[in-house]
């Protein structure tokens, strides 16, 4: 049997894998993932059994493709249990079973541009909650509005409100600065870990799937696999930029708890969510919120406008004494999630974001 991998706390997550068609394979985008059993160290030092997707030796890869690509996922199951694979909202992206030690592939057409969750649906929700989930980001093939402004959504999915909002970003007015550009995004995958459940899976105990949710008592709350201090200092997690440089947050919840993320410093605009069939819904009524709902399996895209924090007094903006950069937290307000191991506030589901300086193009 394979010696189980020890995943030291803070082990770097795989950075985004930006995948393009392989010229030799005639437009086929190949993604190779491995399912691994690991002993993962939590932020307080406790070691917990987890199941994780890896790519090129690094956990929790973010997979990025383009709408309409022919995508082939090959999953190597290095665990001792059978697993599977699916991407809710992406038709055809399902592997019903991958026996222990085996490898299986599926080829499908990348769906409409947006934010998706890949996961193991086997023995739901157990294996997903033990860590087998991650972000699958599809770039739209036709992302611009009729006025030629880039958005995160395909033209066919855009609403008039969405087009209006993105066309407002940049020119003088409410959001002076720059247009949104596709590289300006961050992926936030929320997860929760209950070590007791993980121990039972590790010991191959029989688990009544119908009672998993009722008994789920998570002790660790992570964002891209990090929590607390480390999530606040991970460059791939924590957004930064100048005033006038809008950014899209792609937020996913792979766990069982309903989170209530709250962002300081700016309100965010909720751009999209999903319907009961897991299909992407781009909002026509785009609400500005400081707190939004992230139910289990939710996928939402939000705009962090990077506007000047609106309640800094006009007479002292830019601040004369208080220096840039300005650091603000984003954290879940259902505050049980702010703990690790039952305490250690705020080493739970939190990150920081940073305003590096005033709008460079405004000259102030």
């Amino acid at each position, binding site marked *: 049997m394979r010696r189980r991998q020890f995943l030291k706390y803070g082990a770097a997550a795989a950075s985004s894998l930006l995948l393009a068609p392989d010229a030799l394979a005639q437009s086929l985008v190949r993604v190779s993932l491995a399912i691994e059993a690991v002993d993962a160290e939590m932020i307080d030092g406790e070691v917990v059994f987890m199941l994780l997707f890896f790519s090129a030796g690094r956990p929790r890869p973010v997979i990025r493709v383009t709408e309409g690509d022919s995508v082939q996922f090959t999953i190597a199951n290095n665990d001792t249990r059978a697993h599977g694979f699916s991407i809710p909202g992406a038709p055809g992206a399902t592997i019903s079973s991958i026996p222990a030690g085996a490898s299986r592939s599926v080829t499908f057409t990348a769906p409409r541009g947006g934010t998706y969750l890949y996961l193991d649906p086997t023995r739901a929700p157990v294996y997903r909650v033990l860590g087998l989930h991650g972000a699958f980001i599809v770039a739209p093939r036709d992302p611009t509005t009729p006025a030629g402004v880039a958005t995160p959504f395909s033209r066919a999915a855009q609403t008039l409100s969405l087009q209006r909002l993105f066309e407002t970003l940049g020119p003088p007015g409410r959001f002076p600065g720059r247009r949104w550009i596709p590289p300006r995004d961050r992926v936030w995958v929320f997860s929760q870990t209950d070590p007791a459940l993980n121990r039972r899976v590790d010991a191959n105990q029989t688990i009544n799937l119908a009672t998993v949710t009722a008994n789920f008592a998570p002790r660790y709350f992570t964002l891209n696999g990090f929590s607390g201090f480390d999530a606040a200092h991970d460059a791939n997690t924590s957004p930064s930029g100048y005033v006038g440089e809008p950014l899209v947050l792609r937020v996913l919840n792979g766990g069982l708890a309903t989170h209530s993320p709250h962002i300081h410093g700016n309100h965010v605009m909720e751009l999209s969510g999903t319907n009961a069939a897991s299909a992407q819904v781009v909002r026509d009524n785009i609400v500005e*919120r400081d707190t939004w*709902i992230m139910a289990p399996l939710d996928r939402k895209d939000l705009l962090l406008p990077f506007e000047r924090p609106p309640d800094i007094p006009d007479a002292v903006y830019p601040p004369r*004494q*208080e220096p840039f950069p300005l650091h603000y*937290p984003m954290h879940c*307000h259902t505050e049980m999630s*702010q703990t690790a191991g039952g305490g250690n506030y*705020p080493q739970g589901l939190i990150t*920081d974001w940073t305003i590096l300086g005033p709008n460079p193009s405004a000259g102030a």
Partner: protein
Amino acid sequence: MADDNIFDGTAIGQEVTFETFGCDVFHANPPTPDRLTPNVTFDLGARLGLDLPTPDFRSIEVWRFDHEQARTNAWPSPTLRMRQGQIVHTRMKARTNTHTIHHHGIEPTPFNDGVGHTSFEVSGEYTYQFQAGEAGTYFYHCHKNTTLHFEMGMYGFLIVDPPQGPGAVFEGGPRYDVEKLWAVDDLDPAWRELGHDAGLCGDDAGLNLFNPKYFAISGAFAPNTLTDPRAVVRARAGQRILIRLLNASYSILRTTLGVDATVVSIDGRGLGRAGSPWSRPFVIPANQPFELTTAQRYDLILTPPGPGTYSARFDFLHWITRAIQDQGRGIAATRIIVT
């Protein structure tokens, strides 16, 4: 005072470490940087240890902020009310241990945002400064060991009226004749056994497990909420009612009203207000439940069709199981009485 001295011992201008992020966070009592002459000042002190009688003939402890002068012993903490455009100072005395005030939804500089790891916790006194930028419904709360301090009750409403004052939700927005503030909360007696810094430095305080037994609307405990004037809305036929609804609980709050409600503002941002053409108000039909998670606010306009008593019911759902809390007892009901 030189700028450097203002920021000594705070997160500004220095590297935050694992320790100063959490267990050994910054404590300070600095002067307010970029200080301006305020239009309105609130003097608040942290007050712990208020025992409130409960309907089951017991009591439960709450912590709160109260006015330094003219103490009210009110819970939740006093409502802070100001007008859009005003320079606001909130002068907070910590009094016991350390506390902060985060004006939730208000977006000032980090030094005035009340978060320990991005600024400092107050051990003596600090004056928070901001300029109220947008009319709407906000709240404020202590952001130290927030899991515990917010649950213990250290919060109150913060309302920004339009420049003309109360009567409209925002400038050019919907008007109202009757206003009601509903802060809907749940309380776990077991957490009353914990100290103010429980769990901060590594001990398992059980703060990941929340099992509320008391359910309240603006300080009135269910089932008294059916008659308590803090919860019950009274209006005359034809009057427009504004309800400012805050989920101050750690539950998913499922709300069902017996009358149509128009959502006109969310989280302090008017829907369809000038400069926001991508949003618009929407109607939630009578008896159709809607959900808010912790810290969300909805401003609702009600125009009941005529005299009568209309129901309002809150189901407190567990954040994981979605079961009604406390074995199905986690419900608070009240009434909207139109005469």
